[in-house]
């Protein structure tokens, strides 16, 4: 026997040796018609066969037992259920609130800026019309004096209103700061979900793979009654059943006679 044999190989060769020894004795016993010896050796062979089977079975049982015990003793699971998942719910709610606030703040600033710009545009048209009249020599001297005042006022208001709009644009920019904090929170939740996923995969592996549905059933189990609204779809995840753009919607509706 070479020294490089692994314990497993050694075990096998020992087992083989044990069989060979008994088979040789069996051969001798049969040739000499020794019934008692034949019975004894066959009994020996059966015991040998069973003991190796039980050994394998025992090892398997221990492996399963160890896996289940280690899974049950995994404190991280309790922590996930008691702390991390409720914590993630809080985070997601916070993200909803934060993005809602940012959207409203942005829209408020945009709406105000639009009002200011509309006012400026109306004033500019008025001044421009009067100015054209002056250039066509349609204004009296008094009217020109009043136009001159009007122009001065217009320029002054442009200065003030531009700074107002500028402030609103800055506010719109600042309102986007939610992205930083919510982005980080979403990443924390994604990490947590990934960990839960790994634990679940382990659980499935322990409880037996035979019962796990094949991957092809994924779509079937995800299919829902079309009348129930399910919210936004991820275009790259649900490719087959989801339209990818408004023009797809239009094509589909056109095919239905719209």
């Amino acid at each position: 026997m070479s020294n490089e044999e692994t314990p497993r190989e050694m075990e096998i060769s020992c087992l083989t040796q044990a069989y060979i020894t008994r088979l040789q004795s069996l051969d001798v016993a049969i040739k000499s018609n020794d019934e008692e010896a034949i019975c004894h050796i066959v009994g020996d062979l059966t015991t040998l066969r069973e003991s190796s089977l039980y050994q394998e079975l025992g090892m398997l049982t221990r492996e399963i037992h160890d896996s289940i015990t280690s899974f049950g003793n995994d404190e991280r699971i309790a922590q996930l259920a008691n702390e991390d998942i409720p914590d993630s719910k809080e985070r997601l709610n916070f993200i909803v609130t934060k993005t809602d606030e940012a959207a409203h703040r942005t829209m408020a600033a945009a709406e105000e800026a639009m009002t200011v710009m509309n006012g400026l545009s109306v004033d500019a048209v008025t001044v421009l019309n009067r100015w054209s009249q002056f250039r066509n020599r349609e204004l009296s001297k008094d009217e020109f004096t009043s136009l001159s005042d009007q122009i001065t006022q217009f320029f002054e208001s442009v200065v003030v209103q531009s700074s107002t709009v500028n402030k609103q644009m800055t506010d719109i920019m600042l309102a986007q700061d939610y992205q930083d904090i919510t982005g980080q929170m979403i990443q924390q939740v994604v990490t947590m979900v990934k960990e839960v996923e790994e634990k679940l995969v382990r659980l499935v592996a322990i409880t037996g793979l035979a019962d796990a549905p094949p991957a092809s059933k994924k779509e079937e189990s995800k299919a829902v009654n079309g009348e129930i609204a399910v919210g936004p779809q991820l275009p790259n995840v649900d490719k087959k059943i989801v339209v990818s753009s408004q023009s797809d919607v239009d094509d589909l509706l056109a095919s239905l006679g719209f």
Partner: protein
Amino acid sequence: MDKDLKILIVDDFSTMRRIIKNLLRDLGFNNTSEADDGQTALPMLKTGKFDFLVTDWNMPGMDGLVLLKSVRADPDICNMPVLMVTAEAKREQIVIAAGAGVNGYVVKPFTAVTLKEKIEKIFDRLEK
């Protein structure tokens, strides 16, 4: 197209209602009201004061599809044009909405141009 048209905007998210309202105002429609789901919207529609309905699909309470079906089932308002503006983008759902009698379907996120096109298309067809 009559710009004095009275339009009801139904969406559970106030930001989305605000965006649609602003876009409609840009298109010249100033006469808009808002509701946050079908349950609130339906009694408003039944008063007969509205000419056009823009609704989301996925809403708590009564969703947009049920609202659409309720409108079509009510003889007083069954002819009201309905535009669905929604994140529901499954082919099957668009077919169902079409079957329930929607006049136009816009998937979120959408642009001002898309909204304008769909509204104009709806009224072009109604005027024919």
